[in-house]
């Protein structure tokens, strides 16, 4: 029985990430700071992006370029991406200046960095599939850059079909998976303390 991969995986999961860590009811006192809010704000913006993106995918460009509701959801998708990047970069600055890779959190930091790069790729393909003059301009400027580094044959920015599928299928899956791993690692190791912080929990500090 114990040789089964399901048993090994379950035991490893329970050892590394028990349910008390996965869904905690208390946090260290130092998280009561605005700078600790930006990770959750980034996740919230990502939620709006995914929700509005699903509506855009179902309705299509003929709807979101012409109807008032379509233009609204299209704008909601665009502006939630702008906020997503603002929140993510402020989250990145905060974590960089508190050296968030301390306390065996290197993998948390690296998955965050990879999520940032995946976000840039997803946003870039999003700009390319707007199906307007802006996307035409961006793709024709970008193709020379990609051709000059020799990847133009595999990543063809003027190929709307390839860019659309990368934007709505492949890249969101990659970004979603990295984000889930990143959040699970935060749960496993706990949020990083400020440098020289006392390890007191919020409930203890309120007593």
């Amino acid at each position, binding site marked *: 029985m114990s040789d089964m991969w399901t048993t090994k995986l379950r035991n490893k999961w329970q050892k590394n990430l028990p349910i008390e860590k996965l869904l905690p009811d208390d946090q260290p006192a130092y998280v009561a700071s605005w700078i600790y809010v930006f990770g959750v704000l980034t996740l919230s913006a990502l939620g709006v992006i995914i929700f509005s993106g699903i509506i855009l995918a179902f309705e299509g460009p003929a709807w979101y370029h012409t109807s008032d509701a379509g233009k609204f959801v299209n704008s909601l998708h665009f502006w939630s991406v702008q906020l997503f990047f603002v929140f993510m970069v*402020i989250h990145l600055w905060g974590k960089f200046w508190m050296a968030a890779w301390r306390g065996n959190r290197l993998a948390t930091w690296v998955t965050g960095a990879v999520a940032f790069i995946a976000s840039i790729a997803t946003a870039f393909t999003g700009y390319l599939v707007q199906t307007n003059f802006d996307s035409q301009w961006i793709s024709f400027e970008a193709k020379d850059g990609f051709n000059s580094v020799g990847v133009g044959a595999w990543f063809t920015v003027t190929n709307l079909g390839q860019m659309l599928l990368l934007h709505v299928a492949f890249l969101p899956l990659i970004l979603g998976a990295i984000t889930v791993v990143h959040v699970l690692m935060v749960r496993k190791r706990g949020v990083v303390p400020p440098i020289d912080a006392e390890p007191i929990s919020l409930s203890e500090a309120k007593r």
Partner: protein
Amino acid sequence: MTGWISDFMNHPATYLKSGWFQISVTNLVVIVLMLIIFALAVLIPFPKDHKESKK
């Protein structure tokens, strides 16, 4: 687009240039705003939970 939004947005971006360095005023404004938000997030105290502190 019509009205003031059209007047505000319907023209090429203004760029600041110094030697090799070039940035649009729009991007510069966004970066400065982000730095201000970052500074405020570090400096402004987080509101306390009044219900919890009464206990």
